[in-house]
């Protein structure tokens, strides 16, 4: 496992006392987390605990109500320029892939570089093909998303985000909508990215992935980060009652976690 950046360098994500309400419902209740450059943090917790809301706040798909979020030195506030700057650095992969169905795989990848980064189309295509090659989909560049399997679509979605050369990648349950036999191919790509030192925040229940790849596991329950610890400690000796309960459920449901540990 690669070492996260030594603590001397400032963390790339700093979240302090984050609060979020949906109407009267208090969904995030004072979440604080720092993520070091090059670190992979897995966020897990029961359904409805606020994991998606939390990582969607990190690129401002959800607006937070209180607290501060700083990404690579930029504070996320009402300033549109800050928002744009953050979105340029943060890529996101969704549970439902959200590929653009009217565009080919290649066009999905080149749209944002050409329109947002103003990359020359030829250069954007070259880069897109290289990334497709990395996720082993170079042969599928001319296809439309609907012609691909779920696992292939999710790998395209990852490549699409990487085309923007993000410093940070957010994953919201990237394998939850996949058939079991396709999960590993997506996890493999993510593992490789983590090993290369990309900063990643991953919401997932794939505990095998968490054990093998994460530097830290953050356990969320009812809008709070109950426990944040390296995987060995989190899985070996969870401190909180709620984490123990959650892991117990997960192990029973899953027969010990998928993937190697």
């Amino acid at each position: 496992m690669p070492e996260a950046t030594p603590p001397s360098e400032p963390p790339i994500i700093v979240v302090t006392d984050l609060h979020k309400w949906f109407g009267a419902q208090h969904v995030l209740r004072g979440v604080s987390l720092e993520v070091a450059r090059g670190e992979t943090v897995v966020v897990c917790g029961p359904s409805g605990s606020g994991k998606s809301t939390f990582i969607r706040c990190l690129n401002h798909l959800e607006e937070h109500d209180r607290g501060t979020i700083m990404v690579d030195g930029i504070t996320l506030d009402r300033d549109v320029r800050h928002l744009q700057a953050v979105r340029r650095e943060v890529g996101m992969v969704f549970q439902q892939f959200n590929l653009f169905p009217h565009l080919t795989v290649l066009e999905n990848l080149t749209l944002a570089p050409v329109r947002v980064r103003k990359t020359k189309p030829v250069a954007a295509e070259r880069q897109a093909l290289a990334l497709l090659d990395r996720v082993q989909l170079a042969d599928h560049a001319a296809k439309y998303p609907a012609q691909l399997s779920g696992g292939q679509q999710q790998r395209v979605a990852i490549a699409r985000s990487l085309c923007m050369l993000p410093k940070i990648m957010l994953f919201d349950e990237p394998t939850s909508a996949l058939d079991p036999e396709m999960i590993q191919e997506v996890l493999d790509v993510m593992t490789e990215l983590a090993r290369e030192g990309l900063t990643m925040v991953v919401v997932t229940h794939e505990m095998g992935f968490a054990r093998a790849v994460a530097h830290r596991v953050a356990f969320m329950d009812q809008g709070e980060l109950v426990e944040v610890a390296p995987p060995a400690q989190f899985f070996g000796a969870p401190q909180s009652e709620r984490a123990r309960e959650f892991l117990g459920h997960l192990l029973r449901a899953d027969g010990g976690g998928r993937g190697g540990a």
Partner: protein
Amino acid sequence: MSVADAGALAPARRAPFRSPADAALSAAIAGALAWLAWKVVRWAVLDATWSGDGIEACHARGGACWAFVRDKARLILFGTYPYEEQWRAALATALVIALFAATSVPRLRRPALAWAWLASAGVVVALMRGRGAGLAYVDTSRWGGLPLTLVLATVGLALAFPLGVALALARTSGLFVPRLLATTYVELVRGVPLVTVLFMASVMFPLFLPSGWNLDKLLRAQAGIVLFAAAYLAEVVRGGLQTVARGQLEAAAALGLGYLGTMRFVVLPQALGAVVPPLVNTAIGLFKDTSLVVVIGLLDLTNAAKLAMSDPRWLGAVVEGYVFIGTIYFLFCFTLSKLSRSLERSRAHA
């Protein structure tokens, strides 16, 4: 899509003679159709009169009086456009028809064609209006017949479409004032018949203009049609916008696309693609509704035909007149609906 089609239509595509009841029904329908076809052929061809200079010439044979159409074709097609200059109107019409034809070929649908449309708009106006280039000036009040119908419908759609898209975007935006304005506009215009809009355009526009200015009648009618059609198109487009999944907006936002980029490259292509049939439906409706410009005294195809029928020499040649213009309307509307099908096919990947 072909699989789904076959599934939905499977019962209708069974062999027609499977059971005695089927056979009897099929035979009865075939018989009725044959009888009808025979009646039509007798009226339109066998008993028809092809030449003559008055309705009396046709009375003897009892069939269709095509002599009327022959005699009045130029009045119906070009209205009161000066007789000696009608070649200009014919040329303009041919140009528009050629462009329609080109547009219905998928291979030719590329940006250059849009420019060709734009350039032709200028050519059509120059031809029809004249003045300069050695062409005599023809006031727009004398434009009429098919070219007038084509101009009103084509320009109407070309301008109403972007306006409709803008209205739909405003109506679905999170911004209160644009939403309120767009909603009010659409509901007001939709609640009023086109005749009323045209009438108001004709009477009310001049009130807003500085005194001494006079917006010509054709422009007023055109503006009325654009404003009217935009409201209907806006609702069709809004329906399309609702089919686009929320996740598409989130993915676009996460990639850093702003509002305009998201709409232009992600949302609108999907939204418009989803509503091609109702869009074309609205276009066809508009094409036919242009005949309502008669209320402000313009002589489009329908009204030129009515004028021709009112000639005392040809009193009674009503069916022939309507069959003639009906065929013309049909050819255009049918082309439009073919265009719709080909657009649907060309985006039906996977």
